[in-house]
């Protein structure tokens, strides 16, 4: 009888051009390579310097998302906040033309955040290997794919050879059980998992999410969970799909069980994504002083009622239609607190159109929020959408590192429901109170 294999084992074995040995890593075949403007220009330069062509343009798809404006065109021109961002976008367009790569450019029908459009366009499929020069590539693991982020040198490797040199990662299974309480979402689940594992707890591993809670999740919820695997240090996150499943009895290097039946909405208090606490809980007594001071929070004190300046709903973590619906469910018929700026940034043009056809844009505008064009926006804050020093934001994105959303900005990570509740209250608030 064949040995029981994990989902990772199966995808790995199916893509081995050359197996690994003690002396050399495996040569792993890549089915789908997603490209964006920020981590690709230097890779195309390598190809040009060496006189190489893209081996499989048909396995390569590009979009513009990281440094792009989220405000509409003015007199037919995109309002780039920085000239160098415009140069980057033009460089990607030229590279794609030169190599025959499909490009979803700014303003086109299917443009959007790379990890939102891949699945939307039906590019991501179970059993595939998917890579991109972006650490949140793990999002695509929701479809039963092995998907991980790579550096720019590796972008060049894949462009030129469709392959990567890789050591096989360790396997970790996170089994999640329990029905989620009202107001508790996939974002809260993954924030709780990261808090349990720690920001380095997944290093060297691929996490497979299993258990009935995950089985009951929609594909968009699974994408939110897989998306943040890297925030625990893991190379990738995945969920079995269709014929691509872990065999009964397969062994994992590490197994973790998480019960979410009593989980509350979660929010981070600190400066790494492992610092989530229940929204109605207290900042830990032993919170490192540097992080607490940076965030303007007090060890031992509650977060509820902490004044905020900005709410950001969007990103590859929570910028899909179900996320916008969740935010709208709180904002419908309500006004955002005075003095609070709320940015709602759909993950893609498709998400934007779908949201508008349901009237969500009107809900947001009526509440006093800004309804923007798709892109990474304030998640990475390199396009002009940024916090000012000292400003506090409740954000549905994935990182709360110091300065992540703008120099000196303070980020509290939470779900779209919790973010919307904060928008209404002008302070950190419990979405369960609003929904009740």
């Amino acid at each position, binding site marked *: 009888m064949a040995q029981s294999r994990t989902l990772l084992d199966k995808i790995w074995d199916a893509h081995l051009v050359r197996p690994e040995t003690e002396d050399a890593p495996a040569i792993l*075949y890549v089915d789908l390579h997603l490209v964006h403007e920020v981590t690709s220009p230097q890779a195309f330069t390598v190809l040009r310097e060496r006189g190489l062509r893209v081996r499989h343009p048909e396995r390569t798809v590009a979009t513009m998302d990281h*440094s792009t404006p989220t405000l509409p065109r003015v007199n037919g021109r995109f309002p780039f906040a920085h000239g160098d961002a415009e140069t980057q976008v033009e460089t990607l367009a030229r590279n794609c033309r030169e190599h025959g790569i499909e490009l979803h450019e700014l303003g086109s029908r299917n443009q959007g955040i790379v990890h939102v459009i891949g699945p939307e366009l039906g590019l991501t499929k179970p059993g595939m290997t998917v890579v991109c020069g*972006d*650490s949140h590539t793990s999002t695509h693991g929701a479809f039963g794919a092995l998907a991980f982020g790579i550096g720019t040198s590796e972008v060049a490797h894949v462009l030129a050879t*469709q392959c990567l040199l890789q050591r096989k990662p360790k396997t970790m299974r996170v089994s999640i059980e329990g029905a989620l309480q009202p107001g508790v979402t996939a974002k809260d689940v993954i924030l709780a998992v990261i808090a349990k594992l720690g920001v380095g707890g997944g*290093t060297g591993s691929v996490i497979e999410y299993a258990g009935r809670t995950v089985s009951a999740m929609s594909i968009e919820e699974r994408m939110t969970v897989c998306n943040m695997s890297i925030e625990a240090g893991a190379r990738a996150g995945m969920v079995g799909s269709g014929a691509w499943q872990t065999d009964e009895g397969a062994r994992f290097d590490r197994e973790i069980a998480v019960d979410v039946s009593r989980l509350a909405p979660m929010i981070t208090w600190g400066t*790494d994504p492992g610092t989530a606490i229940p929204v109605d809980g207290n900042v830990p007594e032993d919170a490192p002083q540097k992080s607490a001071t940076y965030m303007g929070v007090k060890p031992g004190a509650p977060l509820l009622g902490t004044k905020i300046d900005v709410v950001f709903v969007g990103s590859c973590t929570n910028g899909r239609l179900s996320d916008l619906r969740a935010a709208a469910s709180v904002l419908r018929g309500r006004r955002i607190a005075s003095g609070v700026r709320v940015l709602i940034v759909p993950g893609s043009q498709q998400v934007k159109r779908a949201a508008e056809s349901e009237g969500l844009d009107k809900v947001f505008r009526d509440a006093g929020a800004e309804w923007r064009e798709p892109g990474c926006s304030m998640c990475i804050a390199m396009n002009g959408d940024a916090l000012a020093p000292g400003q506090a934001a409740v954000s549905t994105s994935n990182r709360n590192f110091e300065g992540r959303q703008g*120099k000196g900005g303070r980020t509290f990570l939470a779900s779209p429901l919790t973010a919307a509740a904060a928008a209404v209250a002008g302070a950190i608030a419990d979405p369960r109170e609003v929904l009740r």
Partner: protein
Amino acid sequence: MKLLKGRAVVVLRPNIDTDQIIPARFLRTTRREGLGVALFADRPEFLQGQTGSILVAGENFGCGSSREHAPWALLDHGFRAVISSSIADIFRSNAIKNGLVPVQIPDTSQLRGEVAIDLETCTVECEGRRQSFALDPFARHCLINEIDELGYLLAAEKEIAAFEARR
């Protein structure tokens, strides 16, 4: 490169993420060069006038984004190695591809002043005390002989073509 000697720059804070190494606003470039000025741009207190070519950092160094701009900035600033009790996966991979030596040792607390890293024996020496570190044999081979991984992959062209043909 087999032996690397230099002065330690000690920044023992844990979880120095890629946004602290190089903030995102410096990623709006199409070049690899000249990023040294952006290194720790918002964390000037990290270096505090320390100069040297070997960065000794707290645990989980380089966590976060896949930006290769992080090792590019460290190299352009003059660093040749990073020593930490743990180094994030993508950062380590990016570092090796650019010849920045990633060294993981359990105890970094004794490292100061002049440090020597021997890639042949995989040891770090400081003030007469020697510690071994583990390094993937392929990474070690590539660092010592300045092997370019793209060249290695291109040389596997026949195997790649055969794999594509049998799928």
